[in-house]
């Protein structure tokens, strides 16, 4: 076994509150921390690697929203391999809330988490996590952690506050489509485009240069040998803003199935 295989990734389930007040929303998160030099993977790991997976089991009377995935980085490794993920640390979080009528004394949240972490070698791991929150007056905890990851997700292009609005046009049947990004400020420079859903692949990305309307053509197809039944595919567009900072947009592409309805 490789000496680095003894590496351990720490996984914890936490909240931004010390207690649950029924009717008052809070945030839950799964935090994964790997040692220096290691990286973890996005929901779509790319050409290699395994996606980080976390399944949250909330207690009765509790609603949780889907995980918010931070904007990943693109990693290029020898052999022209592209993958997507996070250097060292990842916080997957979601808004949560307990119904105002709830009278439970405490709330137990469970999460099944699995991951792959790589440096020169890769290790896999999994954990069954639990977090018990008492009912009562809430005191904020882990604020710095949740605040630092709060704005790290790609902005949905359909959001009124998005730096760009997007529309897209399919071109033919082989998955080719043209994405038009209408920037409200200075145009961003597109670096890469990838689907958040690993059942799809994006190829042949061509980005137009500059201009208030960025035109990106790409090929979006299901992975070979599959036929996923989904209504939409969220595409993440990575770009650098006018200050050269890396940012992301999510553009939701409706699949042909949806169009045929």
């Amino acid at each position: 076994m490789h000496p680095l295989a003894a590496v351990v990734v720490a996984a914890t389930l936490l909240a931004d509150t010390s207690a649950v007040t029924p009717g008052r929303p809070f945030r839950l998160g799964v935090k994964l921390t790997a040692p220096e030099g290691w990286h973890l993977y996005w929901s779509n790991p790319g050409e290699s690697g395994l996606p980080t997976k976390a399944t949250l089991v909330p207690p009765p009377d509790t609603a949780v929203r889907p995980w918010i995935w931070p904007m990943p980085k693109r990693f290029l490794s020898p052999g022209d391999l592209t993958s997507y993920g996070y250097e060292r640390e990842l916080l997957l979080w979601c808004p949560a809330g307990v119904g105002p009528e709830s009278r439970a004394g405490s709330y137990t949240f469970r999460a099944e988490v699995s991951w792959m972490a790589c440096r020169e070698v890769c290790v896999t791991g999994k954990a069954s996590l639990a977090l018990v929150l008492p009912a009562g007056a809430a005191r904020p905890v882990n604020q710095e952690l949740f605040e630092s990851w709060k704005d790290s997700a790609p902005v949905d292009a359909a959001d009124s506050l998005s730096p760009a609005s997007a529309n897209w046009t399919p071109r033919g049947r082989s998955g080719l489509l043209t994405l038009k990004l209408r920037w409200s400020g200075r145009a961003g420079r597109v670096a890469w485009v990838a689907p958040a859903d690993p059942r799809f692949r994006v190829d042949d990305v061509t980005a137009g240069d500059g201009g208030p309307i960025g035109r990106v053509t790409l090929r979006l197809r299901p992975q070979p040998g599959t036929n996923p039944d989904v209504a939409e595919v969220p595409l993440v567009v990575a770009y650098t803003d006018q200050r050269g900072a890396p940012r992301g947009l999510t553009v939701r592409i409706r699949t042909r199935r949806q169009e045929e309805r």
Partner: protein
Amino acid sequence: MTRTLASIMALMVTGTALAAKPREAKLGKPAPAFTLNDQDGRPVSLAGLKGKWVVLEWVNADCPVWAGCAREGTMAKLAEQFAPQGVVWLGINTTHYATLETNRKTRADFNLSYAVLDDHEGKVGRAYGAKTTPHLYIVDPKGRLVYRGAINSGDDETKVNYIEQGLTELLAGKPCSVPETKPYGCSVKYKK
């Protein structure tokens, strides 16, 4: 090229291609030729296997995904199952720090009856576009690539073993119904 054709082609290229990929082995086309040393230093060439069905499996004992599959005997069982029908199974190790000794140990540790070839230089991996361990390819007796991708569809309940399915179809004279899938596993650890 005439001026008109050139200007039409210039109009078609309206942007910059991001991350252009090198050409890789294509399905239905001749699989890239190679000669690599097995774990005992004996050369094995693909050309010498013409007339036989060949399965190529990218391996790496340090990859928990490959090791997990190998520990279950997934690949070894298939190799044994199809050997009587003349299918040649070859492991290829493109890990940049692997040696012949590494490959001898991998065979011993995981009870592999098939050879493991030394590709630590990465030439064959790159020619095939090998991305993960495991990553599998099937070459037909005419030397053409007829399958590439994952060993199976993963851990879902309706798990399909693409190699078992593919070889069964091909040996019965039928085409491979699923000629390509996305491989999964750790990245192949290429030399920089």
